[in-house]
């Protein structure tokens, strides 16, 4: 291994390791708890959705919550038992807040659901294999908890050329990966093989710090002749950071704000590899994990394989916790871990260590003093940032400056705070500043979203209002037009006037006509004026002017005539007034004709009137056609002239019928009279029928 070139990363520290506390005993199975709390969000991404109901019996390995969305993983029952509660439960978080969870009361049998192991994963399509890993509920077991299948599937820039297996485990106290590599090297190698087959990288590099010689030896033996490069790294915190490990093994730096995939590399934790082996080759979903129980407040520090959801208090009790000696409880390591407010929270997928130190072992930090700008933090920063600058910017909430100084490249490793002579809680500043910036971003995003919704709503309301307004205007216009026509027809007293004779002119034509008429009369007036002037004092200029005006009057008159002619006398307007007018005209013509007939007018006059009547009828038809109304249903019954004889016959029949009715109604009537009335009616009917059939 020594012949292989290794690189180095900037900064780093060498804190006391304290690993010997817990790495001497083999991994123990933790006792089966009576009650398991399974938070739905144990990973980065959307929380899983429960698919079981309270009271349902579940088997070990059964899916109890399904992944919701792409960046999410399902959750499985870690043991057999009954679902007793779904709702807010303690969660391992520094705030001590509750989080939605499924609670399972164990039945003590630990009975597995039927599993679907797959010995020959090479026969599977990559998508199927990825789906298997996803369905096994695997998220990164190193600490961050990013869904593994998503990480494997996301390849933004083409192919991954280097697969990096992270066995550095650089944080003090933690030995879970160490023990895992020692005891499960074969499974680990099988898991790496699955990953290598899935990704097909050019090289596979395994990085282990040189403070784990047993693990290195075990892995070396398990690797055999496989072409995986085992790299022994000098112990330095934080060599297990993803970006730092990439730089250590390949000399390449992950760009600011980027991921290892941006430089064609992919990192996986050793624990995740073993989980992938279990999921694919044995069909077992992720229901347990190896967790280091350590600290001087424990009588038996060790590594246990514990079921997810096991209450932390029970695990610590198993390791012999002396609560009186424990100063605080830390989840994770002393550098990057966080203090838990209670022992009731459960173990989750990302929990790799529970640290119960005494007060003398990890004393509380002394009160912070002002920064003296010594620069030790900048020397220690593995991300090459300027921690003291960031600290001042965070204090002043200068978010732009924080961004400009790459705050988001900070991995919160705590190296700067470790070396700070003023004991400034630097990481806490960065965490707070990051949270603040993210919150502001979210608020900004929400404000933008609300603004868009508000504007869309305004637009919609405006359009609706406009449409209403347009409709109202159209109605008002129609009403005004109808009224105008009515008044126009009413204002014309003389029906015989040329304009009144053509009431049904089309509106446009009417307008034109009006205009031309005005022009013509104006020309006439001008002509008259000029003529007067000419009469008063005749000059050649005035004469010429008069001639000109006369020509203009002629032209105007001609134009008017042309337009009037263009509008046929019966050009219908689509309105009721015209129709009414035509009807009235017709009626007047008809009465005139009748009067003339009665008065015994001579033939010439009658023909003239008849013609007028016919033309009025035609005008009415035209108006009817032009109006939107359907033409009246004209049923012309040809009434035959009633002659004298028929009339008398009908009268006789009616009298006979009336007589008969009268007699029938009168109960006291004598039968002969009734009989004679019937014969009379029958006779009258016969006579009428005879006459009509003639």
């Amino acid at each position: 291994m020594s012949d292989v070139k290794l690189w180095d990363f900037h900064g780093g520290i060498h804190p006391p390791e304290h690993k010997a506390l817990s790495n001497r005993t083999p991994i123990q199975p933790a006792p089966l708890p009576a009650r398991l709390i399974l938070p739905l969000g144990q990973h980065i991404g959307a929380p899983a959705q429960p698919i079981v109901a309270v009271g349902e019996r579940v088997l070990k390995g059964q899916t109890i919550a399904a992944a919701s969305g792409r960046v999410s993983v399902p959750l499985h029952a870690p043991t057999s038992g009954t679902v007793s509660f779904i709702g807010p439960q303690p969660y391992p978080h520094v705030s001590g807040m509750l989080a939605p969870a499924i609670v399972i009361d164990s039945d003590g049998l630990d009975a597995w659901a039927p599993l679907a192991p797959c010995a020959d994963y090479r026969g599977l399509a990559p998508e199927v294999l990825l789906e298997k890993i996803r369905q096994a509920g695997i998220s990164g077991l190193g600490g961050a908890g990013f869904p593994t299948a998503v990480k494997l599937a996301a390849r933004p820039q083409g192919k991954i050329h280097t697969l990096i297996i992270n066995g550095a485990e650089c944080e003090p106290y933690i030995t879970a990966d160490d023990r895992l590599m020692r005891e499960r090297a074969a499974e680990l190698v099988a898991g790496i093989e699955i990953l290598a087959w899935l990704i097909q990288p050019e090289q596979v590099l395994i990085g282990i710090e040189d403070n784990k010689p047993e693990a290195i030896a075990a892995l070396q033996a398990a690797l055999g002749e496989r072409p995986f490069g085992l790299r022994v790294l000098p112990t330095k915190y934080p060599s297990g950071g993803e970006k730092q490990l990439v730089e250590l093994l390949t000399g390449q730096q992950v760009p600011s704000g980027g991921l290892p995939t941006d430089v064609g590399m992919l990192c996986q934790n050793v624990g995740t590899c073993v989980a992938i082996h279990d999921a694919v080759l044995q069909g077992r979903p992720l229901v347990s994990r190896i967790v280091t129980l350590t600290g001087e407040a424990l009588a038996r520090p060790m590594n246990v394989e514990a079921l997810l959801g096991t209450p932390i208090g029970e695990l610590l009790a198993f390791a012999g916790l002396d609560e009186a000696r424990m100063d605080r409880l830390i989840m994770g390591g002393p550098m990057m871990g966080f203090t838990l407010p209670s022992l009731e929270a459960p173990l989750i997928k990302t929990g790799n260590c529970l640290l119960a130190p005494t007060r003398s072992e990890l004393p509380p930090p002394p009160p912070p003093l002002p920064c003296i700008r010594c620069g030790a933090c900048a020397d220690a920063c593995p991300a090459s940032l300027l921690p003291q600058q960031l600290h001042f910017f965070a204090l002043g909430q200068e978010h732009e400056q924080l961004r400009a100084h790459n705050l988001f490249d900070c991995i919160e490793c705590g190296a700067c705070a470790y070396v700070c002579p003023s004991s400034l809680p630097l990481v806490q500043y960065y965490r707070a500043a990051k949270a603040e910036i993210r919150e502001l971003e979210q608020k900004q995003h929400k404000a933008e979203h609300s603004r868009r919704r508000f504007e869309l709503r305004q637009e919609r309301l405006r359009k609706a209002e406009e449409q209403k307004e347009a409709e109202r205007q159209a109605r008002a216009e129609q009403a005004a037009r109808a009224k105008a026509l009515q008044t126009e027809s009413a204002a014309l007293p003389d029906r015989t006037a040329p304009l009144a004779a053509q009431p049904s002119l089309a509106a446009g034509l009417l307008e034109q006509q009006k205009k031309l008429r005005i022009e013509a009369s104006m020309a006439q007036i001008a002509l008259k004026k000029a003529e007067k002037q000419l009469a008063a004092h005749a000059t050649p200029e005035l004469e010429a002017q008069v001639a000109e005006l006369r020509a203009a009057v002629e032209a105007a008159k001609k134009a008017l005539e042309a337009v009037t002619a263009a509008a046929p006398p019966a050009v219908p307007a689509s309105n009721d007034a015209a129709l009414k007018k035509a009807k009235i005209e017709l009626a007047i013509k008809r009465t005139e004709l009748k009067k003339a007939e009665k008065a015994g007018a001579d033939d010439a006059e009658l023909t003239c009137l008849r013609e007028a009547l016919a033309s009025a009828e035609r005008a009415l038809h035209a108006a009817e056609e032009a109006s939107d109304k359907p033409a009246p249903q004209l049923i012309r019954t040809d009434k035959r002239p009633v002659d004298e004889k028929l009339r008398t016959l009908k009268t006789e029949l009616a009298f006979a019928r009336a007589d008969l009715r009268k007699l029938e109604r009168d109960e006291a009537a004598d039968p002969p009279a009734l009989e004679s009335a019937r014969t009379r009616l029958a006779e009258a009917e016969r006579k009428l029928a005879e006459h009509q059939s003639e």
Partner: protein
Amino acid sequence: MTAVLVLLLLCLVCGALLGYAAVRFRVEGNPIAEQINARLPQTQCGQCGYPGCRPYAEAIAAGDKINKCPPGGAATIQALAELLDLEPEPLDAAEGEKPPMVARIREAECIGCTKCLQACPVDAIVGAAKQMHTVIAAECTGCDLCVEPCPVDCIDMIPLAGSLQHWKWDLPLPPGRLIASDRERAA
């Protein structure tokens, strides 16, 4: 004499240029109001006394005070002060800064009058006449404009529940500004 003429000519040329530019490169709308509007929380709640965020932004651009937005609080005042180069002032509101709220309809009591639907500036309430209404919590801006029109008072404004996703670390107290006895407590 020539100097005066040259200067006069220069003045005229520059004036013409400026006049032309003012017409040619005229900016539509008020860019300052636009930028102010982008910094307002867009709840459209009207608590500033203007009917919505844009009118308030325009009022600020015309010289109104920047401390009339309770939903935005100190953060908005700070942002506006930076933008306009003004001194940040304390919030001008009786109740002071309110935590983010969300409307919730007690659905059993809703009579389906649609009055709240018409009041909501961001269409965050769904429902129809004589049908139960409900608030889309993710779209609600907490402006409480829907509370007033409800004839049966079945809308509550509840503070947005703190969740793990929204939890954030507190900024540590600045060092060296504590007296020795307080340091113990702060630590």
